[in-house]
């Protein structure tokens, strides 16, 4: 019988707080490292911690090194709160890689736009695009405390205290200014909608990465659907990456 995919047990290698309530956790799981591509997510649970929260939690891949994956996460509720207490050596249950992946263009000017924690998958995407493309990253955050320090990355951070989330008013201008040929965005829905519509007006392709509440993460529960122009689609297996034009 052939080797079957298993639930992986990863081991925490390290964790640090990088902004207000925002952490990077590094989890050793060599097999997963070999399989992941930008856009993929993993479904995480914490054995021996929160056993009343049964459902796994989806997180994008933020980065990889030789043997470990990194997740950039923000504390939201039960599981992410407990996640911050994980220490080196603790075990984490991982299901993945899950979902589809970002398009990987070549020789293009690419603009990546992350809102808040939505920047996570874009950093990993940047890593795989930078060799063959000219890539810029815009990161919108609500407050100064949420801003992150980006070493060696072409990130422009926008702090938008007033509006409540990073809305790219006049984003068409931004596209033209950067002469972008391809846009990728992940963040709050209103922001992504704005960017998809601006990209359409500017005539450039735009991919988005969506979130939804999930039970299974691999397409069987039908719980994570979002409405698209061609009916409900499953974020976990039809996405999380969608062509913006399909959505708005």
């Amino acid at each position, binding site marked *: 019988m052939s080797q079957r*995919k298993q639930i992986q047990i990863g081991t925490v290698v390290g964790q640090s707080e990088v902004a207000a309530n925002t952490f990077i956790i590094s989890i050793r799981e060599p097999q997963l490292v070999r399989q992941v591509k930008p856009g993929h997510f993993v479904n995480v649970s914490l054995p021996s911690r929160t056993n009343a929260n049964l459902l796994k939690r989806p997180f994008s891949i933020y980065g990889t090194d030789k043997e470990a994956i990194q997740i950039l996460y923000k504390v939201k509720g039960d599981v992410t709160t407990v996640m911050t207490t994980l220490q080196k050596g603790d075990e984490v249950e991982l299901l993945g890689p899950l979902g589809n992946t970002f398009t990987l263009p070549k020789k293009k000017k690419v603009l990546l736009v992350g809102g808040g924690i939505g920047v996570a998958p874009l950093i990993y995407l940047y890593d795989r695009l930078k060799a063959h493309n000219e890539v810029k990253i815009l990161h919108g955050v609500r407050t100064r405390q949420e801003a992150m320090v980006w070493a060696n990355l072409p990130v422009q951070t926008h702090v938008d205290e007033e509006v409540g989330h990073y809305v790219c008013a006049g984003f068409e201008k931004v596209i033209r200014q950067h002469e972008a040929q391809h846009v990728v965005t992940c963040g709050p829905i209103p922001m992504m909608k704005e960017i998809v519509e601006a990209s359409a007006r500017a005539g450039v392709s735009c991919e988005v990465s969506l979130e939804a509440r999930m039970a299974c993460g691999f397409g069987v*529960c039908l719980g994570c659907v979002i409405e698209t122009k061609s009916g409900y689609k499953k974020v976990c297996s039809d996405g999380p990456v969608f062509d913006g034009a399909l959505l708005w």
Partner: protein
Amino acid sequence: MVKTTVQLGPLTLQNPIVTASGTFGYGVEFADYLDINKLGAITLKSVTLNPREGNAPPRIAETPSGMMNSIGLANHGIDVLMDSILPKLEAFDRVKVIANIAGHSLEENVELAKRLDQVDRVDAIELNISCPNVDAGGLAFCQDLPMVSRLTKAVRKVTLKPLIVKLSASVPDIVALAKTAVESGADILSLINTIPGMDVDIAKKALFFKRGSAGLSGPAIRPIALKAVYDVAQSVDIPIIGMGGVASVEDVVKFLLVGADAVSVGMMNFVRPSLSGELVDQLSAYLVASGETLSTLKLKA
């Protein structure tokens, strides 16, 4: 090797581990996580005559030790099931396939049963009269005993395949319901379906689910499910597939002890996709270690 074969009336399973409708897709999606051919049976997602989009999102909420869903029987319809999905299951020759039908009317269920009766790969038909997430049919059927009777008899008439009727515990009297299904021709009963519950979105000051209520499942409801199976097993003579919060081999044994003949795994398939396969092995190991057999696993008098 300990003997694990179970006879559910006309249906023979190689072991009593089943997967519950709506929580195991069409089986093949789980092939990466376990050898589905080692399971007793898999139950397919409920099917309707026409494709159904299902309910508007959100469809999922987590609850303490459980979850709620408001999927609303989303599915591709009977044609796609028969033409594209069931053929994929031909490759698995040992696991039994239970097709679950959830028409919104008597006529729709009869039509579905007729169509499925023609398919060799379908080993049994489960009549879902207990889905809490639809406006027509579903749980409303379960609450109307004369309707249960007509429905079961009508479906019974059009198929020779083993007929399972799936019950809800959220009814005035589950024993009366069970007896009605038995008298009307069910070969097997399965229970319980999800329990209607609610969640609230505090920020929006609104009910969390668009339809208000949704179906609660998982370990949280296990005590309620055990009691339902016990109560029904005390009063009917046909085999029972028990379910509700099964998460471990101990849970499987508990359901068998209160009177289930087979045990179905539901939401925990999402939490641990390999679980049902592991339970097959663990149940064998349990029987060996405890010196029990499936037929001695009965409550002491």
